[in-house]
């Protein structure tokens, strides 16, 4: 079993030169493999910031607290090392890279986890690739195209899940993997994530819609507001939020947080 712990995490971003703003204001979260956690919360509250900080994006500065993977702090590790240790982030806005095929990229990612003298064979790679393409209802042609280049929004999301299935991390952070997906694609993507479920896999799913959580049923649901996790519960919490909205929860908890909607 692997564990990912976020302890009293404070994160700042640099908005302009010498102008910083604190986005995360003391996040605490512990998850183990075998568990699926969901994070919901209003726009701009710091959900993507949390996932990017865990992954190691250098735009986000940790000013206080720690992130531990199996008890070891990862704050000093570069992004690639964190990835090789078992973290994966399906990004809200995946990058496009012309000239590098999807298949070549996937092989490089897999091989980066293997010793120099034991790289994956072409046969083994293609076998695994075909299996996952089928699961995600993707055509082989997608893997010969350049990485995310010209992919539709939905294709990009599917491609993030394909990477997840190929790389097999211990923890996957999925940032709005459902946004922009049609209903069929939502089911396909959920099927992909569910196929990973098991003792050696944990996931933190960021979403705005309870609907996704009907397909990927979470063990724990967290609500984030104003840069903190303000409430955690089971799958029912997501349903409650869907019907009552964030303002209701905020008032119930007596929080002093402004929501984008309040300005309307």
């Amino acid at each position, binding site marked *: 079993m692997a564990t990912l712990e976020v302890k009293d995490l404070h994160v700042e971003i640099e908005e302009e030169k010498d102008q910083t703003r604190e986005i995360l204001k003391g996040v605490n979260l512990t998850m183990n493999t075998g568990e699926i956690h969901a994070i919901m919360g209003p726009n701009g509250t710091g959900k993507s910031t949390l996932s990017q900080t865990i992954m190691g994006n250098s735009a986000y500065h940790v000013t206080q607290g720690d992130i531990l993977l199996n008890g070891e702090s990862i704050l000093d590790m570069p992004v*690639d090392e964190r990835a090789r240790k078992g973290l994966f982030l399906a990004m809200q806005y995946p990058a496009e890279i012309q*000239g*590098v095929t999807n298949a070549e990229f996937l092989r490089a*990612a897999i091989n980066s986890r293997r010793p120099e003298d034991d790289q994956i064979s072409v046969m083994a790679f293609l076998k695994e690739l075909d299996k996952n393409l089928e699961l995600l209802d993707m055509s082989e042609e997608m893997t010969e195209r*350049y990485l995310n280049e010209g992919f539709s929004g939905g294709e990009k999301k599917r491609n993030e899940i394909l990477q997840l299935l190929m790389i097999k991390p211990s923890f996957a952070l999925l940032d709005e993997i459902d946004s922009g997906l049609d209903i069929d694609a939502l089911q396909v993507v959920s099927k992909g994530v569910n196929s990973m479920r098991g003792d050696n896999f944990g996931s933190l799913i960021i979403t705005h819609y309870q609907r996704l959580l009907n397909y990927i049923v979470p063990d724990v649901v967290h609500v984030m507001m104003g840069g903190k996790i303000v409430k955690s519960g089971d799958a029912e919490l997501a349903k409650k939020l869907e019907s009552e909205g964030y303002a209701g929860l905020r008032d119930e908890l007596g929080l002093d947080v402004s929501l984008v909607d309040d300005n309307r």
Partner: protein
Amino acid sequence: MKSAVQDYEAIKASVEAAANEHGEPHWFVDRRLAAIDAMQDLALPQVQRYDYHRWPLMDNMDLSWHRSDKALADSVPAATDQIRFVQVGQTTVAINLPDELDEQGVILTDIFSAFREHPRLTEKYFMDKVTKADENKLTAYHQAFLNAGVFLYVPKGVTIKQPIEAYLIQDSTVKQAMVSHVLIVAEEDSSFSFIQHLNTKGDEQNAASCMVEVLARANSNVHFSSVDELGEHTYSFLHRRANLSRNARFDWAIGVVNDQNTLGDFTSELIGEGAHSESKVIAVTTGKQSNGINNRVVNKGKHTVANISQRGVLLEKSELVFNGIGDIIHGASGANAEQENRVLMMSDQAHGDANPILLIDENDVIAGHAASVGQVDQNQLYYLMSRGIDKEQAQRLVIRGFLGPVLEDIPLPEVRQEMIEVIERKLEDGQHFK
């Protein structure tokens, strides 16, 4: 300076003797001698914002004949039924031309055999129609000291599906300049692609003067790619020029990945109405290397289309200057010339420049340019690294992405792959010395 003139007289005498010993036709020997005369007054080619006048590009003024060891061509990938020309130094190692092309009148032979066996074609076309010996000092030097090369002639209406590959290997096991000429004549309605590989074997310091002339007649369709991979002891001058007649289509796809200083001067001249040329160049520089590249298109004919796209990557303390020159001549109404010159700086000690130069003497045209000098896209780098790929490999992949638009254009997948590998190797070397 009296002594210099005397030197030139002595050089002429020895060149004449060597050319005669080589059994060259009179017209060509005369041209050599005229070029030596011309050299004395001609200036070096102009490359804006770039200084190369101290390079040893013409140190070797000795014309002599040397048989090279064929084993130096062992690194050329084995061929079964490719169309091939392989030359090491001055020695032609292999010519592979299918019989049916021979029967259709296609000529693929070394340049000196061509002078002897096809005088009518070569006297008319060699450095006379497309490029001239008296263009500058370096072109005159080339004419005077020519010692290697290949001639390709594709008759009217002939389409060659398979690409024609030329491996031109500099023999630097001996002290001798490589003065090599590729002359291509594409007659009306012909269609083919030509791929050139330049390499060096041996560690002597030698210059290379490599020229390409392409005459693309009306309605012909010619694609030229080159993987330039000359060695670390070779200062090179690469002069390449194409002339396009009416409705001809001619493209360059050039990868400049030499290991020493390179002066590149590439031009497409669109003379006939409706001609179209795409000129794509990639360059990668490492160490203390310096590359200066002029990529020029000249719109002369009406409704001609000439685009330039250049991408360069600089590592360590290297220098790279890309000049994109768009020259639209008066009368070329309806012409279209777009250019894009981009360089990527992988080191803050490198010096890169991307200069669009537009010379437009006609109103009814469309012309535009984009240029940039930038750093690696951090977002792309982060994305790749977030999948476990280490920083150096991720950088190389991002660079590949940056070069993508030009790599794309190389017609043969194997050559594209070769280019990628050469670039990758060069980048790796550059990264390790950082």
